């Protein structure tokens, strides 16, 4: 299960709304214990995909390194990655799956007509062949 505190959640939603109709992406920092992940901080990262970003995102490894360094500095961990799906549901697409890694929770935010609609969290496997839905709580 993954729980995202109100402040990082608000930042993630705002990020997704701000770049609409393009996709946003970022890292979620926090702690993990007894099977529960708690996200206490969200870190915006640049969508480095070359070409239209309306339905694609790409993280630079260098930016992930920076996120990891920031997490270590703050005694936190990189818990997951978030990105938005403008004007479609928060499914885990084939593109998401084939470019994922099994180490993180992947939170997808559905943004419809520029406003937040719903979100899901996914846990892809190591072979990038399937992803399990993870219980997600956010805000409040």
């Amino acid at each position: 299960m993954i729980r995202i505190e109100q402040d990082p959640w608000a930042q993630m939603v705002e990020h997704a709304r701000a770049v609409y109709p393009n996709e946003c992406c970022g890292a979620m920092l926090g702690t993990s214990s007894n099977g529960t992940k708690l996200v206490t901080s969200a870190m915006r990262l640049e969508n480095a995909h070359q070409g239209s970003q309306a339905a694609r995102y790409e993280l630079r490894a260098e930016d992930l390194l920076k996120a990891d360094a920031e997490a270590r500095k703050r005694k936190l961990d990189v818990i997951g990655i978030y990105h938005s799906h403008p004007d479609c549901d928060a499914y885990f697409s084939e593109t998401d799956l084939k470019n994922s890694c099994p180490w993180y929770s992947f939170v997808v935010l559905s943004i419809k007509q520029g406003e937040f609609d719903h979100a899901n969290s996914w846990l892809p496997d190591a072979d990038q062949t399937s992803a399990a839905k993870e219980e997600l709580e956010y805000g409040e």
Partner: protein
Amino acid sequence: MAKLLIPTPLRQYAGNHDSLEVDAATVGEALEKLTSQHGDLKRHLYNDEGKLRSFINVYVDDEDIRYLQKDKTPIASGAVISIVPSIAGGAAPGGSYGG
């Protein structure tokens, strides 16, 4: 000695260390020493054919070893080796998985 940073999700397979000191001349040797000391890490870093999993990038300091000498990249004392996944995606056409 070089410092090898362990990504959070893999620490449970590396004695819960967030970094380890390794004495190795090349990146390949460092990873080999790491996985021989912590056997459970191997399947998380390598596929069944013994190759690094496709989503894994290795950096020495701030340099991607793919643009250096790959696993033969030499490592100086004090170097920092990072294991970084490559991540991308999006709601691109072509069907969806799950949801």
